């Protein structure tokens, strides 16, 4: 039956009559013009908000640009910004160290908490959904300034934590103002937001076929053995996904560090996250050329870390459809 002799069909109810052109081949039509028309806002955004700023940023990173100077005053300084950063800026290295420590400690602990609680919730019982929702709540609120302000109050010298410790005769300290513990309070705040990866873990756990557990039981596996030999390998793609996302997320922590240190990265630079240092350089001291160089080092580092994660992922991430 050819298209043209097709018996008359009722028109789609909402279809506009103006666009009804019968007898035209329906498939293999190129929507080129329409495609680019629909894509045009995105393309414009890609150029104006992403690509051009990236190139400008790369250019600025080789200059001494600060916001106060005229464009004509911009001087090409070659690799000077990068050289200063690596050899002559203790604050930069401090920021690198703080960020690495934060990401290396907070990410595994957060994912561990997320997986642990997900395992607890991975049974159908009354109220499981309620618990899931309540554990997720901090992930929605935790990135806000308001929660960071409260966090500061809890760990203050006269805060709730010390009042609690006082019941046991323990004298606490000003956790937020002590260089040895300030970063710890930031890490705790990050772990507190374990709900988002937990929800993703739960979805992954639901996908593990029950036959695998039954087969393991037939072979005499206990609960721990089943976890090691069935749950972990089957969950590894989800673990990997969460690991990549949370690591990148961890590198970018800004709000909590800004609020807990009052915008300084203190005490003694102990909470000077990389993004905070970038902000202070660019918008505090207006050294925008230098800040651009920092941004590029940041971008390359994140790219490198992601690449390394993907590389190592080959050895422990198990994709069930590829193996059989």
């Amino acid at each position, binding site marked *: 039956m050819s298209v043209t002799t097709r018996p008359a069909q009722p028109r*789609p109810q909402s279809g506009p009559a103006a666009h009804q052109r019968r007898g035209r081949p329906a498939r293999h039509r190129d929507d080129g013009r329409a495609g680019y028309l629909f894509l045009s806002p*995105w393309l414009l955004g890609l150029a104006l908000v992403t690509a*051009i700023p990236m190139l400008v940023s790369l250019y600025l990173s080789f200059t001494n640009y600060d916001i106060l100077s005229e464009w004509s005053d911009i001087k090409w300084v070659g690799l000077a910004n990068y050289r200063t950063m690596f050899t002559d800026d203790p604050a930069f290295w401090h920021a690198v160290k703080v960020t690495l420590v934060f990401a290396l400690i907070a990410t595994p602990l957060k994912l561990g908490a997320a997986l642990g609680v997900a395992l*607890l919730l991975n049974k159908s019982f009354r109220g499981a959904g309620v618990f899931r929702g309540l554990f997720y709540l901090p992930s929605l609120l935790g990135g*806000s*300034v308001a929660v960071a302000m409260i*966090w500061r109050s809890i760990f203050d010298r006269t805060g709730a934590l010390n*009042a609690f410790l006082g019941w046991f005769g323990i004298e606490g300290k000003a956790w937020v103002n002590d260089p040895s513990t300030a970063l710890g309070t930031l890490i705790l705040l990050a772990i507190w937001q374990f709900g988002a990866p937990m929800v993703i873990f739960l979805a992954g756990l639901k996908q593990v076929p029950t036959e695998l557990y039954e087969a393991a039981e037939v072979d005499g596996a206990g609960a721990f053995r089943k976890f090691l030999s069935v749950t972990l390998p089957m969950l590894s793609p989800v673990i990997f996904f969460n690991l990549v996302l949370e690591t990148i997320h961890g590198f970018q922590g800004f709000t909590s560090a800004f609020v807990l240190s009052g915008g300084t990265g203190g005490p003694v630079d102990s909470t000077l996250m990389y*993004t905070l240092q970038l902000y202070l350089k*660019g918008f505090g001291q207006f050294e925008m050329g230098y800040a651009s160089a920092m941004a590029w080092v940041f971008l390359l580092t994140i790219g490198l870390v992601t690449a390394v994660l993907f590389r190592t992922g080959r050895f422990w991430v198990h994709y069930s459809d590829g193996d059989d």
Partner: protein
Amino acid sequence: MVSVTAGRRPFITPRAVILVLLTALVLYPLAWMLGSSFKAPEEILNNVSVLPDTWTPANYPDGWSHFDVAFGRFFLNSFMVATLTVVANCTSCLLAAYAFARLRFRMRGFWFAIMIGTLLLPSHVLIVPQFVMFRSFGWVGGPWPYLPLIVPHLLATDAFFVFLMVQFMRGIPRELDDAAKIDGCSAYSIFRYVVLPLSRPALVSTAIFSFIWTWNDFFRQLVYLSDLEKYTAPVALTLFIDSTGQSAVGPMFAMSVLSLAPVFLFFVAFQRLLVEGINTTGLKG
């Protein structure tokens, strides 16, 4: 009693005990914040209890008028920025997603790969050149300094939402498009009469997440807003850091509670949708 619970597992299991304790621990900071906002200033910090010894609502009016500009102004500004972002994201990302998910055109694969590439691009990397650019447009510190916060969303730069909607549209049966094409619908009418009505759930997710993220966003608002009158709620809250002393603590708690209220209401109203939203896309809260 027995007849109701017969055949069920006992209600109090070790698992239940652990979960309840854990919930208490996780919710404590939020409950403490809410309770403390009703405490007298001298009681706030060092009272571990969630419930105040003496209840007083005074922190709320004190906080509302703590700065030269009433806090209501900051909330209005936040609300405006968040609402405009929602509208901008829903429109622009939907258009881009339709092109990626449904239309054939040259280099589609290439552009799609670029879009995926921008997913993981940290906003901090571009903030300096964007600031320089928007400033040269006269948008920074201008009469309406929210342009740099909103215009990027009009241009579908939130790749997360483009991706979310592409994934969603791929689930809409293609037979519907084909049927509409046979009936002579153009790409535009298919968008208008087939894809748009069916994309409602993806639009709702985008709207809710856009609102919450913009409401919570701090970094970009901190960079672009310099005039007290134009501050949004998160930027205004940080003013409490500088005003030390006990007089500021109560108001700070009260305004923090108010600033979290909209997000909390969204959570109560759309809890399932939010949780499932991060399931399908891996979006962060």
